[in-house]
């Protein structure tokens, strides 16, 4: 297939939900910390003490940004590692009360893989991707439930989950709740009521390789990993301190502009939702149109091969992702789209960030209908 009619414009990266481009504050902080924070913070000489100061300052910044205590924060080599440590560590801490994890059907695969280590009960969602709260209530109240896990908002379709209500049911049942807030932190507030919370710097414009885990005081958590000689629970081994410093600095910067950005990006997402539905025949725009993340939108095009669509968009300079089976390493359709019962082939997830312009979105909306039409024509539709 060739698309030569329109010369490709400037490249537009529209996959912030996978990895947001590095925020300028993160870049600055990273360079400074590479020069100043390379030593081992546990050592007593001046370079070590300097690294320890940077580490403490980063922890304090995370604590302030997330409105928790510094000693409730631990840092992990990725959001995935933080989520898995949350699930496995909280299950271990509750072994005397139960052995079952209750989780939504639309958790990140990091949580689902951890769930497969033991007993798990899955709670479904509706066509818009919203948690079934009645089923959640019944599941967490069942004897033997050790932990509940709920994603703050779907990373694939953007639907914001009823975290506050789900947390109330957990509190009634005396079950701790882990909230995977990777897509929310830095963009939208996460309601209180959770016991553990995970986030990933990569998703808000920090560097890759920094996961944040909050374990509230009074929540029993036992590390699933062998520990080291340090007194503080966390990932064993040395942290990537420059990356941690950059992550903390960028989170503060991102939060300062979050409200303005949410309004701007949400309007662009509304435009995508409306124009795609209006200009592409046989398309299903999925996820909750109102209770959604500000920066993320997903749609599925009937009769279209997801991989062909991604490649065609890439040739036009657009980087997007897809939940279609042909684009997944597992060759299975996205478990989120399956749980919602929406079309999984021809699927595109567009996720915006602070560098995304109105012109990027308009050019995407201009080229998309022709690309879809061309792929369908090749398939004889």
């Amino acid at each position, binding site marked *: 297939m060739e698309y030569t009619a329109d010369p490709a414009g400037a490249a537009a990266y529209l996959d912030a939900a996978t990895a947001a481009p590095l925020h300028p504050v993160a870049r600055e902080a990273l360079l400074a910390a590479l020069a100043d924070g390379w030593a081992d913070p546990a050592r007593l000489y001046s370079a070590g003490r300097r690294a320890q100061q940077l580490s403490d300052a980063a922890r304090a910044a995370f604590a302030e940004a997330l409105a928790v205590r510094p000693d409730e924060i631990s840092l992990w080599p990725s959001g995935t590692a933080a989520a898995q440590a949350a699930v496995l560590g909280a299950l271990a801490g509750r072994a005397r009360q139960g052995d079952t994890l209750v989780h939504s059907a639309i958790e990140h695969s990091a949580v689902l893989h951890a769930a497969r280590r033991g007993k798990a009960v899955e709670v479904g969602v509706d066509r818009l991707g919203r948690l079934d709260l009645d089923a959640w209530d019944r599941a967490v109240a069942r004897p033997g439930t050790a932990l509940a896990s709920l994603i703050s908002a779907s990373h694939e379709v953007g639907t914001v989950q009823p975290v506050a209500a789900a947390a109330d049911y957990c509190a009634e049942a005396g079950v701790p709740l882990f909230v995977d807030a990777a897509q929310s932190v830095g963009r939208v507030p996460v309601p209180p009521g959770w016991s553990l919370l995970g986030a990933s710097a990569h998703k808000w414009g920090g560097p890759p390789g920094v996961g944040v885990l909050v374990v509230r005081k009074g929540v029993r958590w036992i590390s699933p990993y062998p520990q080291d000689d340090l007194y503080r629970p966390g990932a064993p081994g040395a942290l990537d301190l420059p990356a941690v410093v950059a992550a903390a600095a960028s989170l503060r910067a991102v939060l300062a502009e979050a409200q303005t950005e949410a309004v701007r990006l949400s309007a662009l997402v509304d435009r995508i939702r409306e124009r795609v539905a209006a200009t592409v025949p046989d398309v299903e725009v999925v996820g909750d149109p109102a209770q959604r993340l500000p920066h993320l939108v997903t749609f599925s095009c*009937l*009769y279209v091969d997801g991989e062909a669509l991604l490649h065609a968009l890439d040739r036009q300079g657009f980087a997007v992702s897809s939940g279609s089976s042909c684009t997944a390493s597992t060759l299975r359709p996205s478990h989120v789209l399956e749980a919602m019962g929406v*079309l999984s*082939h021809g699927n595109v997830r567009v996720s915006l960030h602070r560098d995304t312009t109105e012109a990027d979105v308009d050019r995407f909306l201009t080229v998309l209908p022709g690309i879809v039409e061309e792929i369908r024509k090749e398939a004889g*539709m």
Partner: protein
Amino acid sequence: MTLDCLGQKCPLPVINLAKKIRNVPIGEIIRVLADDPAAANDIPAWCRMKQQEYVGSPEPNAYEVRRLS
């Protein structure tokens, strides 16, 4: 009528279903055989989007659709 899409990757089973259902009299059922894991999700989704009736999956890798329009 049976439509054999075994071995075909999605979206091919759905594309072939959309083509073949034109030959099915309204009210009749077409059975689609498909072993791509996405078929179990996408055939019912297609029925919903195109106002056809998804009857069910009587056995693994088989899906029945009634033509309504």
